[in-house]
């Protein structure tokens, strides 16, 4: 495998080593990229991992979207490169306008930390290319602001354009339409609240996350062969 994956680290990110470890375990070449970096040249996929970027001050992702690396992420996404935001990374992508909607405080004001079922709703994204629609994956969630919110017109578009990527089987946070993950129009930018990187080893209770990250690596690998470096 020749794919190189950039795992972006903001001040306050805390899941970057889990993501690098999970990708390495699947044969990928993942590297940490500091948020001050302005280029993502040479990478075939980008992951924004979970944590508390810039302390989640003001709103999760509100400050992170102005980090220098985000312009490079936007260019990488516009060029069709696979971009995945996990948990706080999903929040950053919505704040940056790379994904629609917003992630509000959980219904009931509960921090949720549990394993949840999510149903794959589309296979058009780099994360779900190895799955089938209707597959139910068991993945950990760990968040206070994961309540996906958008207006009615946006929700109608997401449904019509096949952009709802995952739905919770048992909604843990009040998300509209049970949404656990969405993608952009082209399908190459995906955000999800559950943590696939924490479900890549039988010791951790589930290996369903490996299906998603393995798919991402497959897409990145194809890309690395297609696009001259």
């Amino acid at each position, binding site marked *: 495998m020749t794919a190189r994956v950039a795992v972006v680290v903001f001040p306050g990110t805390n899941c970057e080593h889990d993501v690098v470890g999970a990708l390495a375990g699947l044969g990928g070449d993942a590297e940490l990229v500091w948020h001050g970096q302005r280029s993502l040249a040479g990478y075939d996929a980008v992951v924004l991992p979970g944590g508390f970027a810039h302390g989640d001050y*003001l*709103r999760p992702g*509100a*400050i992170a979207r*102005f980090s220098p690396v985000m312009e490079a992420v936007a260019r990488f996404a516009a060029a069709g490169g696979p971009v995945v935001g996990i948990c706080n990374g999903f929040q950053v992508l*919505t*704040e940056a306008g790379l994904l*629609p*909607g*917003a992630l*509000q*405080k*959980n*219904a*009931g*004001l509960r921090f949720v930390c549990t394993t949840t079922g999510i149903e794959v709703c589309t296979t058009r994204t780099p994360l779900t290319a190895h799955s089938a629609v209707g597959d139910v994956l068991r993945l950990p969630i760990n968040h206070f602001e994961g*309540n996906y*919110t*958008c*207006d009615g017109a946006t929700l109608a578009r997401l449904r019509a354009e096949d952009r709802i990527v995952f739905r919770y089987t048992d909604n843990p946070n*009040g998300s509209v339409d049970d949404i656990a993950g969405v993608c952009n129009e082209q399908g190459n930018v995906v955000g999800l609240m559950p943590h696939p990187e924490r479900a890549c080893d039988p010791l951790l209770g589930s290996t369903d996350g490996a299906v998603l990250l393995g798919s991402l690596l497959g897409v990145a690998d194809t890309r690395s062969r297609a696009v001259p470096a």
Partner: protein
Amino acid sequence: MRFEVLVEVRLRPGIADPQGATVERALPALGFAGIDHVRVGKAIRLQVEAPDKAAAATTAQAVTERLLANPVIEEADVQVLGPVPAEVAVP
């Protein structure tokens, strides 16, 4: 001149407000009756260096739209409270 600005950020009407709902539910237990429509937002104060009040308002409005509020779920009011007295302008 330096102007004191107050920005009120609140959730748009129709967006569920779990914090407001929680506060509202706590009130009867404290003996307060007849209170509803509790909404929790943010108040942000800042000082803006600008030639006049209108310019301060324009700058604060731009800051609010760019950073302080997320238009997907929030709306905001920007209020220029007035000039900051010179002697306390720089703490």
